């Protein structure tokens, strides 16, 4: 049901209409409107940059550290926005689900697509920043969409799983808030991974098995500097399988999330 449905025209129309509405209404009534999609991550970046790069002198050995940091914060914002919206989607659209019959996953996908649109806008800013900062454009910039897709799949898997549980147990929203806070420190966004590796190489390797960390480090490698430590480069050739763990985790999350969501979705209308 789930996969062929996606190709069905009516569902694509609904997905388009819902996403359009979501995006249009997100910044409704604010003076700066869509500009906030750019300003929010940039402001978060400014704060982190002042605190960590200027005051605490992090990353002084990394070339183009501001862009390096910006890549981390932008994609981290994408992940949190995506999952927050995705987990809330079904509950927020309860009025629809109780009154019309349509494939429920559309609601989750449309809620998360707003985050995708936002991150695409921010990507343009990143590339501009990179060029201003003197980063040499490289063919690896073309790999960015693939990495974005990987992170999106991971976010979507989490959204499906937790969003389905959230229908019955609204505690999930609060629990996820805490998890996101913890994850923020478990992913090398503000601190360079080399800092962890300096005290414990094993800890650094474990951190890099997290798909979010893998994607962000790969993005930095592709966009900013070939000196960025990636999961691929941190694991020796003799442990080839370990290099694939983040990808396997993404796949598991997506399949498990979709399966669970699909199983539970027929009761959403009654339980919301």
């Amino acid at each position: 049901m789930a996969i062929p449905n996606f190709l069905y025209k009516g569902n694509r129309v609904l997905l388009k209409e819902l996403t359009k509405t979501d995006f249009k209404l997100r910044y409704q009534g604010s003076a700066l409107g869509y500009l906030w999609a750019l300003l929010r991550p940039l402001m978060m970046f400014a704060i982190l940059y002042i605190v960590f790069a200027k005051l605490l002198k992090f990353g002084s050995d990394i070339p183009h550290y501001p862009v390096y940091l910006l890549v981390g914060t932008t994609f981290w914002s994408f992940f949190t926005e995506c999952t927050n919206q995705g987990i809330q989607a079904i509950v927020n659209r309860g009025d629809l689900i109780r009154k019309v019959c349509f494939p429920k996953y559309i609601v989750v996908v449309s809620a998360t697509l707003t985050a995708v649109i936002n991150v695409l806008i921010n990507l343009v800013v990143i590339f501009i920043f990179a060029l201003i900062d003197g980063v040499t454009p490289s063919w690896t910039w073309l790999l960015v969409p693939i990495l974005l897709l990987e992170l999106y799949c991971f976010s979507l898997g989490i959204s499906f799983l937790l969003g389905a549980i959230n229908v019955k147990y609204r505690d999930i929203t609060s629990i996820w808030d805490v998890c996101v806070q913890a994850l923020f420190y478990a992913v090398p966004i503000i601190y360079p991974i080399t800092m962890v590796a300096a005290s414990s190489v094993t800890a650094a390797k474990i951190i890099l098995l997290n798909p979010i960390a893998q994607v962000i480090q790969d993005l930095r490698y592709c966009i900013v500097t070939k000196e960025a430590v990636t999961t691929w480069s941190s694991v020796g050739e003799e442990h080839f399988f370990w290099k694939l763990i983040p990808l396997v985790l993404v796949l598991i999350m997506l399949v498990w999330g979709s399966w669970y969501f699909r199983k539970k979705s027929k009761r959403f209308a009654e339980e919301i």
Partner: protein
Amino acid sequence: MTQQKSNNTSEPTLDYSHNPVVISVKHLHKSFKLPTERAWGLKQAIFNRLKGIKGYKELKVLNDISFDIHQNEFVGIVGRNGSGKSTLLKTLAKIYFPEKGSVEINGTLVPFIELGVGFNPELSGRENIYLNGALLGFSNKEMDAMYDEIVDFAELRDFMDQKLKNYSSGMQVRLAFSIAIRAKGDILLLDEVLAVGDAAFQQKCADYFASIKGKQTVILVTHNMNNICKYCTRAILIEKGKVELDGEPSTIAKAYNNLWN
């Protein structure tokens, strides 16, 4: 049940039994788990599990419902509050899944459990029409074809680019209702949505319903027995989740009024 029906609809003009069956409901059961204590939230769920409390009681809402609806029948569903009418309608609309038994639909079904589902006050009238249409499964192209008729029926052409929040409540309902009756589906499901708008608009709706009687399949849930007698070609009385009576509208209307005697 079909036996009863064909006996009662002996008038030749009201006999639709030769038409193809568009909705076939067979031994439909549906029950809900009603939380006894507040079983919402993780804490209560864990508490209840520990204390061995089930946390809910089962409420049987639909109990072995069977009927066939033929093409172009205008069927009224009546019954007192809590008898299971809306649950039945939602199961027909596939919002609820049947627990036991089956619901078979031939053709596109356009459900209006409530008017204006998904209407957003911040969107314009036009955008709301297309959003509502998409929710009902219509493509933009199909909506383009219906758009003019909807706007004309609602008599709101001058307001289409205004935000919905600037509409009066009567205008909002008129727009929603016009989408409902102008949506090109084979089967129309309506739940208590007849008396909307001012006297003139109500008259227009009445005329419209009279005009489609016998030309389109409609299922209507209402408490208004005048409407049942006026528009319906057949009525079903639901009581305690069962089909109590199925037959001619006037007979059903009488039986409905006798429920309280």
